[in-house]
């Protein structure tokens, strides 16, 4: 496949998050390109694959083959994006374990919803570690081996301490904002 116009067309359709218009595409291809012929050829290249080039009126888009829809959708229910609150709660459990929910609330100075702990528990990253001998005998939480495996740690001792985080400059900037972590302030959105 040596046709540069075809490769460019393919890349443009791939990076677009939405269907693209034939004329829009034609303007971006090398002069003299036959956009209709190229689109037809590209669609033929993808025929029968897991991804297909599909026309709707004058617009074109790559989409997954219709017969795969059910299998792709099946995964989706197991997925979650952690909210910033959940990630921070996980970090506090990792660094301060064993901690009770009240401890976490005190450390974060924010109310911690039960849903946040549930999400982390369902991931298998935290588990109850016992009860504290204080009134109400609250459950204490800690991280699991799965947590270590997920984050590629051999032991909790590998987590950098505050001084090391500071030495790396992580306490000077606002890393969370720069990393583009979910900004959800509200705990309700712990799992989406």
């Amino acid at each position, binding site marked *: 496949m040596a046709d540069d116009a075809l490769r460019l067309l393919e890349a443009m359709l791939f990076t677009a998050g939405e269907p693209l218009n034939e004329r829009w595409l034609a303007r971006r291809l090398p002069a003299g390109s036959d956009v209709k012929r190229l689109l037809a050829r590209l669609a033929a290249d993808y025929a029968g694959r897991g991804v297909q080039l*599909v026309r709707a009126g004058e617009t074109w888009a790559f*989409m997954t083959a219709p017969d795969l829809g059910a299998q792709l959708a099946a995964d989706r229910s197991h997925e979650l994006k952690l909210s*910033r609150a959940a990630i921070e709660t996980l970090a506090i459990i*990792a660094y301060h374990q064993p901690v009770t929910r009240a401890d976490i609330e005190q450390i974060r100075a924010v109310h911690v919803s039960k849903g946040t702990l549930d999400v982390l528990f369902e*991931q298998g990253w935290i588990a109850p570690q016992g009860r504290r001998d204080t009134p109400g005998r609250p459950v204490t939480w800690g991280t699991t081996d799965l947590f270590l495996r997920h984050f590629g740690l051999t032991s909790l001792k590998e987590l950098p301490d505050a001084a090391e985080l500071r030495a790396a400059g*992580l306490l000077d900037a606002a890393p*969370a904002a720069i990393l583009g*972590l979910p900004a959800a302030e509200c705990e309700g959105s712990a799992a989406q």
Partner: protein
Amino acid sequence: MTAWAERESPFDAEVRSDGNEAFVVDLDGFAGPIDVLLSLARSQKVDLSRISIVRLADQYLDFVAAARRRSLQVAAEYLVTAAWLAYLKSRLLLPRPVLEDDEPEPEALAAALAWQLQRLDAMRRMGHRLFARPQLGRDTFLRPAAKVPAAPSVPAVPAGACTLTQLLAAYAGHLKRQQTPRLVVTPSSLMSVDAALARLRAGLGAVPGWESFLRYLPEECLNDEADPLTTRAAVAATFVACLELAREGAVRMRQARPFGPIFIIAAEGGSTGGG
């Protein structure tokens, strides 16, 4: 040739020697003595593994002398390195005295210096090579996560899970917020006596006969899922409100035995409007 390969090296700017090797003295351009040494070594225009350390020492001493002639502030580490290089040069040139037991051979020191310069030079070149490669987001692109599923029932597949980077950044963010403590006054959700009084005054007329004062608690305190603290506060506030209304003569209260249920009734002819 591709576009990224034509970019200017970020390191080009540091080599400032002219044809006569008279160095333009600009301390601000350097990140420390080793940076000066590396630039000088490059100006010898030989393979770095074969640079003359004696000549490098001379070049460096000239550089520092020139900087001082211009009354530039020369940081201490430049002078320490100058002294060390002057010593190394003399050791390399003078007839060999008997060495102290723990004193390294001058040739070994010279080789170690050459090696360190080579290594730093290699790391700079590799940094340049890395950034000359096609980069994600500049030269290569991922498909954006589907905002709208391309077809019904075709979802985006997020990888979901959180990375160690995110975890550490979250903790660092938490510590950082702790560095700047702020006072947060959270509004209390507990019932006040004033609120209990208002409730009782509004509700009393509707109930004929004796009734446990607990009946006047808000409904959300009576079901099983009620937060115990909220319920306790409501009970206490309502009880105090009852006493207040009894004092005013608006209600009468009755308790048959110690710790038994407490009943109240609107006082006949009494004012429920309070005083």
